[in-house]
């Protein structure tokens, strides 16, 4: 008899949980805006960012040359500069002043000034000074241009040095060896071509995803307790925990479902790198979805209205990508910001995503991220529970 009773209770509980889950799906599906935001937002974001970074590396930085020497040597140099992968000579300026104007107007990003007597000084083994000017107002351009310029100047210096030594009667192979006594081999691991698309596209797409998910999570409590139907739910005597778990599990499943097309498009179609085991990747995303949901729930429990809940959520979700240290190192931020960033699940997510994309990490390497998700979820859910118990 007692087993019959408990089986009936389990059946009733299961029926209740499924009914709540079904309603939650209908709620998301019937709210057209919410549906489009959750399902299409991240996909559109990924497509957009893939389009933006489709060239994958920054090439053809507009460059101007001021050739004050006009010698055969300077022409050779210009040819070498033109052959550099990242630079594209677009303009030949007559003077330094003209170059200044071109950079100020944004017509070119870099400029190289070849001084008068460049060819002569080089042939006489005298020191000569090339001016390389970079527009620092655009950091992405500037970093790439600087790197290219450094590479050119290093090659030029070596070439000139070897020529001088040969001119002084040293054998060519000895001259070359003298300049290459310290051979520096530059190897970029994990992303050898320094591909921008590999680095940012998936992260930016998932940033859109996490923002959309936060919006949905922010409705969990405020959306229910501020509605007139809250009266019905309270009078039905359904436990708040059962209601919360059923709603939350459905929302988290919806978050993962919304992310799946993004992962498919990114990895299978755009061939963005994902060097990790699939179960680990899935588990990592699931753990993040739970942590993210807990933050949304906390915002939802504090807010007085659903609109305010969404505002709180956006206040957290929007800057979280920048705070995560994905595009700018966390270590370079002030201590207070570092601490704040570490309290956000997005920080642990984007840091972990980088590892999963490039470094094929094992569970041990990812364990701090999982632990952070667990802690954030526990704190946020517990705090929300206290707030909701007091409020309702």
């Amino acid at each position, binding site marked *: 008899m007692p087993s019959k009773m408990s089986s009936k209770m389990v059946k009733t509980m299961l029926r209740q949980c499924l*009914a709540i889950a079904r*309603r939650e799906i209908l709620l998301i599906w019937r*709210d057209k805006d919410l549906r489009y935001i959750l399902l299409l937002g991240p996909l559109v974001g990924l497509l957009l960012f893939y389009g933006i970074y489709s060239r994958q590396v920054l090439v053809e930085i507009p460059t101007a040359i001021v050739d004050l020497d006009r010698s055969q040597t300077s022409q050779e140099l210009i040819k070498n500069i033109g052959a550099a992968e990242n630079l594209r000579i677009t303009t030949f300026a007559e003077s330094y002043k003209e170059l200044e104007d071109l950079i100020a107007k944004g017509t070119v990003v870099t400029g190289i000034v070849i001084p008068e007597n460049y060819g002569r000084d080089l042939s006489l083994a005298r020191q000569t000074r090339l001016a390389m000017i970079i527009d620092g107002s655009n950091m992405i351009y500037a970093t790439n241009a600087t790197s290219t310029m450094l590479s050119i100047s290093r090659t030029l210096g070596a070439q000139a040095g070897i020529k001088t030594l040969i001119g002084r009667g040293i054998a060519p192979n000895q001259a070359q060896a003298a300049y290459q006594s310290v051979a520096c081999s530059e190897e970029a691991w994990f992303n050898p071509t320094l591909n921008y698309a590999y680095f940012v596209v998936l992260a930016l797409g998932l940033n859109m995803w996490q923002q959309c998910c936060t919006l949905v999570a922010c409705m969990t409590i405020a959306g229910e307790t501020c509605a*007139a139907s809250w*009266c*019905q*739910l*309270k009078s*039905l005597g*359904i436990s708040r925990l059962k209601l919360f778990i059923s709603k939350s599990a459905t929302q988290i499943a919806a978050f993962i479902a919304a992310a799946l097309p993004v992962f498919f498009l990114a990895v299978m179609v755009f061939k963005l790198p994902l060097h990790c085991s699939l179960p680990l990747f899935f588990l990592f995303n699931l753990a993040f979805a739970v942590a993210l949901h807990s933050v949304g729930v906390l915002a939802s429990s504090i807010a007085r209205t659903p609109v305010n809940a969404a505002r709180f959520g956006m206040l957290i979700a929007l800057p979280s990508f920048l705070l995560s240290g994905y595009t700018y190192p966390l270590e370079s931020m002030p201590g207070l910001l570092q601490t704040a960033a570490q309290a956000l699940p997005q920080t642990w997510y984007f840091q972990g995503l980088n590892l999963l994309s490039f470094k094929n990490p094992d569970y041990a390497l990812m364990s701090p991220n999982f632990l952070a998700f667990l802690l954030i979820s526990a704190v946020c859910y517990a705090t929300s529970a206290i707030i909701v118990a007091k409020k309702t």
Partner: protein
Amino acid sequence: MAPLIKVEDLKQTVGKQIILNSLSFQISSGECLGLFGTRGVGKTTLLHILAGVNRFKSGRVEILGYDIEKNGAYKKQMGLITQKPSLFKDLQAYENLDFIAALKGADQHNIADLVQRFVLHDILREPVNKLDAGVYQRLSMACALLNEPQILIADDLINDIDPFSQSIIRRELNSFLISGGTCIWGFSRIEFCRCTSRVGWLEKGTLAFYTPQEAQAKWDRRWHHIAQQNEQQDGEDYA
């Protein structure tokens, strides 16, 4: 027979304003208590306390032997119809019935029976926020009765709705009472007191009990008095 609902020294305040001032009363099984009062006197507050929707400042409320502050098990034997539309507006009519039935652990067959009794066939696929007031109220009552409750709490059950819906709701309320159900019905129009077995008149935070006839007579006297005062005033103004 032990009372189904027992209220002792119930007090409720909003800010510094006392809404319910030490109310004590009992409701027996099979009774239909009309809770009468003008708008804003605290009927909804009292009904929501009994339904377990709102908390209260002090006192003790016992329903079906359960102290409602400590145990919500009585809710399984209760149905609520609210004054303001409180069905799930994101769901259609049938989905509301289905959802509430699932949450109440009610038999699925009850839905079909209630749909027939409340003549809801034609609106089952309609979103509830598009329903007319009368149809909405029929659906609300059908939802409240899904679990075949012992107690029905109704706030403004048939106020300002079409005659067809009124007649169906009255018929079903009678049938509920005949089958042994207990009802507390809040209203602000005195003519509804005829449908009740006892009237609790809520005024200035206190509750006084009358037979329906006594309540009607009290109301009539009051109106007569007000009318006399108005006539006197008009006379003075004319003079």
